[in-house]
């Protein structure tokens, strides 16, 4: 019998140990077609999508839409479809709302969904003390009464977008009895909804495992198990999909998208989404001069930026409405015209030798090529007589400055609007009473103000288009481009892109 010396035995042990680790990895990473693994670009801070920061974080709505259902569903083109509410509307004079609650729906614990759950969710969302960040939206309706599965309520303040909000941020139906039984902390540990997938396991900042809801009212989901891996670093997401560790990933650099989507075994899809890049103009200093504002806009070659910096992945825009939005008007154009920019500046006494100077703030690394884009814009401005100093700020600082109306004269940021309504784009970005507007002036308010409560939908949309036209003519904001979302996935799958940007597992199927 061969005898092992101590050193040999230790060496063998170490080899066996390493081999076992490697072998364990291989077996665990084996292909499993009943499991969908998504290398996701955001962490999930909370399972309650109706309160706090999570409620207004567009990036994690895909997860909420997997576990819960919204009052009203949303198609991938942003249009509404029946959700837990199958029909909805106002009475003739729009003093009341009504909606029908879907019958035969079960919570993940097997108990039936009732109109009471829907009313409780709406009333809870309307209470500021629950921490719902858009409580005022939900408080615009109330005093609900139930008859069968039909719910009727009073319109306290007419909001033409209330039903759109039912498919938007914080618009989720939660289980009244279960929530009251387990409380907020119990719900965080074991959340239940009516959605296509049920909570199974969660490791904060690491992964969320869901299992298919066999009783889902919309039919059995395509995968038995869905795993959201929280991979917030874009390089790591590229590695996840390239190594085969994940089946789908999103929001990777466009260079990587071009490379990976051509790779054998992988496929890709891109779509313009409800998120735009823009430059807020604050009504201070040189920006009070219309010529400066318009010159700053005309001097930017948006198509060139999209082509050269974003590899063609972007859609130049001239208003805050993207083409998929309700108030988009293709006839409103500002146009790239550096000669006109020079003339406008000259009219105000500025030139390349005597440039107008101001600061432009930007994020760096938050959105694709954000800083590089601003660098390019500053270069374009310099050619016409605008000398801009770049200041990089963090997201938190941007929000604080914006809420306090203290942004620099020009400030780059992005703006999402997953319901495509003009109130949630031009409205909140330009109305002086909004905490998020950059430009605040009475002339804009006079145009926008009456539209908040306009009951005639055609008139309302026409009013927003007129406001957008006026804002473009005055140069009160510089819309730049609509972002394009890249998604890479295994070629054994099919992915339906979503304009709202939410990569829901229900949009992924086997090819």
């Amino acid at each position, binding site marked *: 019998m061969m005898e092992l010396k101590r050193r040999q035995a230790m060496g063998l042990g170490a080899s066996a140990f390493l081999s*076992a*680790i*490697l072998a*364990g*990895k291989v077996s*665990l*990473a084996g292909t499993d077609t009943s499991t969908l*693994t998504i290398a996701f670009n955001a*962490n999930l*801070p*909370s399972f309650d999508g109706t309160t*706090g*920061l*999570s409620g*207004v974080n567009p990036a994690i709505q895909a997860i909420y839409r997997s576990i819960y259902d919204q009052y009203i569903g949303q198609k991938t083109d942003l249009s509404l479809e029946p959700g837990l509410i199958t029909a909805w509307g106002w009475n003739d004079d729009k003093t009341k709302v009504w909606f029908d609650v879907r019958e035969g729906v079960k919570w993940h614990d097997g108990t039936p969904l009732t109109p009471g759950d829907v009313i409780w969710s709406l009333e809870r969302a309307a209470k*500021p*003390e629950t*921490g719902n*960040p*858009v*409580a*005022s939206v939900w408080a615009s309706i109330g005093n609900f009464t139930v008859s069968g599965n039909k719910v009727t309520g009073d319109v306290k303040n007419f909001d033409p977008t209330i039903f759109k909000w039912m498919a938007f941020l914080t618009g989720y139906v939660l289980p009244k009895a279960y929530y009251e039984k387990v409380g*907020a*902390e119990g719900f*965080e540990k074991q959340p239940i909804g009516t959605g296509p997938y049920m909570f199974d*396991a*969660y*490791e*904060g*900042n*690491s*992964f969320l*495992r869901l299992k298919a809801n066999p009783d889902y009212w919309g039919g059995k989901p395509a995968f038995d198990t869905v*795993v959201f*891996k*929280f*991979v*917030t*670093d874009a*390089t*790591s997401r590229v*590695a*996840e999909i*390239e*190594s085969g*560790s994940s089946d789908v990933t999103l929001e990777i650099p466009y260079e990587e998208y071009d490379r990976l989507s051509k790779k054998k075994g992988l496929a890709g899809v891109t779509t313009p989404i409800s998120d735009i890049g823009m430059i807020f103009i604050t009504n201070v200093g040189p920006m009070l001069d219309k010529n400066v504002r318009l010159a700053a806009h005309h001097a930017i070659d948006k198509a060139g930026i999209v082509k050269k910096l974003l590899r063609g992945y972007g859609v130049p825009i001239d208003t805050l409405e993207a083409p998929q939005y309700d108030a988009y008007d293709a006839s409103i154009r500002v146009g790239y015209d550096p000669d006109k920019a020079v003339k406008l500046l000259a009219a105000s006494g500025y030139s390349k030798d005597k440039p107008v100077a101001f600061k432009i703030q930007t994020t760096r690394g938050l959105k694709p090529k954000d800083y590089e884009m601003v660098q390019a814009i500053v270069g374009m401005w310099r050619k016409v007589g605008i000398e801009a100093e770049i200041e990089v700020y*963090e*997201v*938190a*600082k941007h*929000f*604080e400055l914006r*809420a*306090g109306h203290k942004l620099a004269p020009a400030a780059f940021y992005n703006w999402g609007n997953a319901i495509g309504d003009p109130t949630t784009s031009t*409205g*909140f970005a330009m109305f002086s*009473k*909004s*905490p*998020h507007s950059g430009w605040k002036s009475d002339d804009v308010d006079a145009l926008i103000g009456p539209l908040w409560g306009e009951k005639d939908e055609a008139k309302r949309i026409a009013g927003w288009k007129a406001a957008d036209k006026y804002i473009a003519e005055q140069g009160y904001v510089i819309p730049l481009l609509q972002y394009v979302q890249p998604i890479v996935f295994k070629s054994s799958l099919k992915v339906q892109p979503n304009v709202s940007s939410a990569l829901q597992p229900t949009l992924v199927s086997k090819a």
Partner: protein
Amino acid sequence: MTASDFLSRLLAALLTLFGVGVVIFCLLRVVPGDPIAMMISPSATPADITALRAHYGLDRSIFEQFVIWIGDVAQGDFGRSISLKRPVVELVGERLPASLELVFAALIFGVVSGGLIAVAGTLSRKTPVEPLLDLINGLFLAVPDFIWALALVLLFGVLWPVFPLSGRMDPSVSTDFATPFYLIESMIRLNLAVMLDILGHMAMPVLALGLPLASIIARTLKEALNEAMVQDYVLLGRLKGMSEMRLVLGEALRNAVGPTLSLTGVQFTFMIGGTVIVERIFSFPGIGSMAIDAVINRDLPLIQGIILAFGTLFIAINIIVDALSNRLNPRQTHG
């Protein structure tokens, strides 16, 4: 260490932590970034903002907020996370063990491999192997941990995918653990499959954190060993016919390990700081990864809790290293 020494160290530690608490509390409220501004929706009215601010207690003066916070901390209540909506103590208690397992594994890797390189370098003095070892060591030393992390992702995650890229364990593994120390628990329970899976997930972060530490230890220990190797007692041993290996391991190492230990303690605290980026790259659910989210979201109670946890850890490590140094220093051991 006598009882009075211990008490004085404890008092100093508490005072230091109080100072850390004061500084971080004030700093967070001075730097730009309002957590409420981040969570208000575009439709929020001034009344909504006021209500939210009151909901999180941010409508009070800084002094008032501090008095409330420090009073609660004294009673073990570190507040609730704004973004995660859970008690800070609970969150830190869940995540810190993951980071601790990671850094201790990296420490073990760094000490063992650094020690081996130092011994190998000492044994190969004045041979062609020595400059080669120094060159490799210098390379490891020059590359920071996050670059290692990215290089490892490319090497062992994509080109030769042998290690998992992200997470603490495979999502298919049951999370039915009694404690947050998954690795230790799986070892105690002799659950080999889970233990190997966890170790596999730790492999790349441990290498990323441990390689720079290993090179520092290798360099410091080798220098100390080289100094020791020309001392009289080593020369005497050599005259007695002791082998070079025995001289290094049996004679020189004991005296050379002191300065290396002190340096290891310092580097260990740096390594804990390094977890912030490394955990992010590998989506490792430790306290470092949580710290980034807390800062991005301006989650003030959570940031404060994490900083205090880091502070406590640093102080504890310093006390342990001091105690070990005293223990290993013959001059102090024998009075």
